[in-house]
């Protein structure tokens, strides 16, 4: 852990001359961590550099870049955050050309916390730490293995727990819209708790995460009610990969498949009638 921290510090120092700032996380009052933009003018601030827990850095990056489109920025990113940056780039939310990625490979413990299948970066040229294999996702597997009735009961209870903080939506680096369908009373009942079943909020959000969820698990982490909503996203991501050969955040040039025309063989894999 401390080795990685030292290496990361060195990597940032190395990048400093080429950029206007490096986005990472730092440890603050009471030991609480938060995102911070480090500058070469103040290398001493790197003393407070931290690596865990992670923060939704791509979203912060988007906010900074929006205000400073010309700035050259670097971001410390894990596999998921790198995927997040890639997807945001595909959706014109980030300018890839002005970015330097400092890859941070996750440890086994971190990967297990996130139930992450790909705890490593692939695009970053500067990399800290050794890439490790993905780990299984027992929660998703457990839900996937349930019968329809069990699933129904399971989600009914989960949705009942939702206090509608919108945290999962707000923290999600891929939810960058100015306004949100989840706040549109045409589709989601506003101001009602508990939310009626089936929860329009969660189902619509799951649809919106199609080919977008980068499996960073920030949503589950911030959920006060511990709703494992990423299970939906991950199951759908599998389908999207299976049906449309799309892997979120993997290939820079690949566009989200649901926007495009059917390619050879795709229709057959959708299971739709002929």
């Amino acid at each position, binding site marked *: 852990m401390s080795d990685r921290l030292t290496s990361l510090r060195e990597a940032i120092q190395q990048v400093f001359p080429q950029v206007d700032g490096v986005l990472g996380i730092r440890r603050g009052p009471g030991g609480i961590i938060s995102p911070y933009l480090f500058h070469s003018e103040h290398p001493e601030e790197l003393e407070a550099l931290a690596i865990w*827990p992670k923060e939704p850095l791509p979203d912060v990056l988007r906010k900074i870049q929006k*205000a400073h489109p010309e700035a050259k920025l670097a971001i410390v990113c894990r596999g998921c955050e790198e995927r997040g940056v890639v997807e945001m780039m595909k959706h014109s939310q980030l300018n890839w050309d002005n970015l330097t990625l400092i890859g941070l490979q996750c440890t086994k413990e971190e990967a297990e916390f996130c139930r992450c299948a790909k705890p490593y970066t692939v695009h970053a040229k500067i990399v800290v730490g050794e890439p490790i294999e993905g780990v299984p996702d027992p929660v998703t597997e457990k839900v996937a293995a349930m019968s329809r009735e069990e699933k129904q009961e399971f989600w009914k209870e989960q949705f009942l727990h939702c206090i509608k903080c919108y945290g999962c939506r707000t*923290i999600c680096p891929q939810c960058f819209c100015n306004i949100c369908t989840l706040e549109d009373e045409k589709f989601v009942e506003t101001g009602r708790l508990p939310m009626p079943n089936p929860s329009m909020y969660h189902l619509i959000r799951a649809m919106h995460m199609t080919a977008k969820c980068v499996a960073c698990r920030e949503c589950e*982490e911030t*959920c*006060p009610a511990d709703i494992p909503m990423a299970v939906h996203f991950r199951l759908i991501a599998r389908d999207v990969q299976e049906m449309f050969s799309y892997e979120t955040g993997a290939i820079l040039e690949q566009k989200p498949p649901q926007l495009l025309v059917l390619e050879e063989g795709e229709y057959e894999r959708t299971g739709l009638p002929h």
Partner: protein
Amino acid sequence: MIEYKSVLTTCPYCGTGCTLHLQVLDGTLVGTLPAKEHPISQGGLCIKGWNVHAFVNHKDRLRTPMIRKNGKLEEATWEEALGLVAEKLGEFKAKSGPDSIALLTSAKCTNEENYLLQKFGRAVIGTNNVDHCARL
């Protein structure tokens, strides 16, 4: 230099005491982030907490002191406004005694401010007519 920081602070809504980060970009608020590993909020927030930054820059914010003149509130300087308050309070205290003045401190303000206002009431005005909406 681009300045981005996250300022750790305490949520101003209910009494749970969640802490959160105000995201500040070049001196303006751009959002809220929860505080991971905090003993109370544990990286989560409720909808109010997530939106704490929203009212801060609201157009309705009072930006200048106001004094009622001819039945209407009109903009005034701090000098005028505080001068008038000091004068009036002094007058009532002298004429009708300290207990003709009452003060409401605030469950929304900081400990330091509550301390100061009750100190002001007790030490400067000389009354125990100090309360706030604890019961409401």
